């Protein structure tokens, strides 16, 4: 289990999606939490797979602090089928008809934490029970249960007191754990708001385009620069851009984008480019073409990226 601070740093780096959305990573919600992953079919085409419905159900119950209606999963299932049939717009319409409330910061954080807990080995049943929810509805969605998911056998007794998978927090502590993370996240947000004279905004290129060009790249800034979620969607979610591998290596679209930006910045500096650019860069062995513009103040803007 990662420590609270580590989890919150990971959380800070994620872009937010208030509605369910199908991206290159799968069906995502909140801070990029994947409810249904993207797999590949025998011809290498991406296929959306709602392979572990109990997990999705438990994640959503944690996010919204109550079990969701079964039709939500039915809509997700139908959206996956439509997306796999190439009906992307219809798939998103079905997701919209699931009528989930907007996933705000608090719901997104709950969802994120629930995902981390399941990743650490907590079963969906344990997650439901720990929050006082009846786990019985999980039986109704077990038809698609992934047998590969680590879980304790029924009657083993371990589920009653401990996380599975080696984690060591009492089940009774789940609610406290989530509450503690929420409180810490709120404190961090408050600290940020109370520091108006903070010397450097998270992303000076966006926040203050009139500022002087930075002397050196701010590669060591602790808080990752915020990147527009639409930009990430534009660049990374188009299958023709073939950037899934890069995102997987960096762990998130934001981190991959920053790596591309850093490589571009270096190349632009080396080649002394100004104005519009169309250059090739290499990021961890991936050869990419990056198009964008160098603004008058020296900041670098990225338009698009493709292999």
């Amino acid at each position, binding site marked *: 289990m990662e420590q609270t601070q580590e989890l919150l740093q990971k959380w800070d780096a994620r872009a937010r999606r208030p509605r369910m959305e199908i991206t290159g990573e799968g069906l995502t919600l909140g801070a990029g939490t994947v409810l249904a992953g993207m797999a590949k079919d025998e011809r290498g085409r991406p296929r959306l797979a709602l392979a572990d419905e109990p997990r999705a159900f438990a994640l959503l119950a944690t996010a919204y602090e109550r079990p969701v209606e079964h039709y939500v999963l039915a809509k997700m299932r139908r959206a996956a089928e439509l997306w796999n049939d190439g009906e992307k717009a219809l798939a998103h319409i079905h997701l919209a008809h699931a009528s989930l409330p907007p996933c705000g910061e608090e719901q997104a954080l709950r969802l994120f934490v629930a995902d981390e807990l399941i990743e650490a080995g907590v079963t969906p049943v344990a997650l439901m029970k720990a929050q006082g929810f009846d786990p019985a509805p999980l039986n109704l969605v077990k038809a698609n249960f992934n047998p590969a998911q680590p879980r304790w056998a029924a009657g083993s007794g371990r589920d009653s007191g401990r996380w599975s998978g080696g984690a060591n927090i009492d089940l009774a502590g789940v609610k406290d754990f989530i509450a503690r993370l929420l409180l810490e996240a709120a404190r961090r947000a408050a600290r940020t708001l109370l520091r108006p004279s903070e010397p450097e905004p998270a992303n000076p290129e966006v926040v203050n385009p009139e500022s002087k060009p930075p002397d050196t790249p701010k590669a060591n800034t602790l808080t990752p620069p915020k990147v527009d979620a*639409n*930009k990430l*969607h534009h660049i990374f979610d188009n299958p023709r851009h073939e950037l899934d591998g890069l995102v997987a290596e960096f762990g998130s679209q934001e981190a991959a984008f920053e790596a591309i930006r850093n490589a571009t910045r270096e190349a632009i500096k080396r080649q002394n480019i100004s*104005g519009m650019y169309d250059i090739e860069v290499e990021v961890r062995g991936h050869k990419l073409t990056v*198009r964008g513009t160098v603004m008058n103040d020296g900041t670098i803007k990225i*338009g698009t990226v*493709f292999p």
Partner: protein
Amino acid sequence: MTTQAALENAVLEKLLNGKSETFQILFRQYQASTVTEREMTGAGFFTYFSVPREIPALPGEPSFSFGDVHAALTGLKEGAGFLLTVNKGYLHDLEGYSYEEPWPRHFELIRLFYDKNESRNEDKVIKSFHARKPIE
């Protein structure tokens, strides 16, 4: 107000305006093409085309991307860029992108221009084509 379709047509006509065989063939494809899908990403767009197969493909059926046309639009301080992709000798899609600004819902096209406002050197443009993996 400029419509999305009008912007795409203006960009394609400027991109495919050339005397070389490559541009002539692609322009004929554009005239016969239909839009099959359009995705607005919030930071730009992807518009996909279908070209009837009775229209000739580019010799050798190459796959590549290029885009030396830029736009000044209301609502985009830094303007927009475009990338046209040809798949196996046929027009495939046009991508429009902003430079890290939200794509405006409503806009007016102010002007289109080639790289660095220079007059176009077709050979140079053809040499700048980025080879792409064909889409099956």
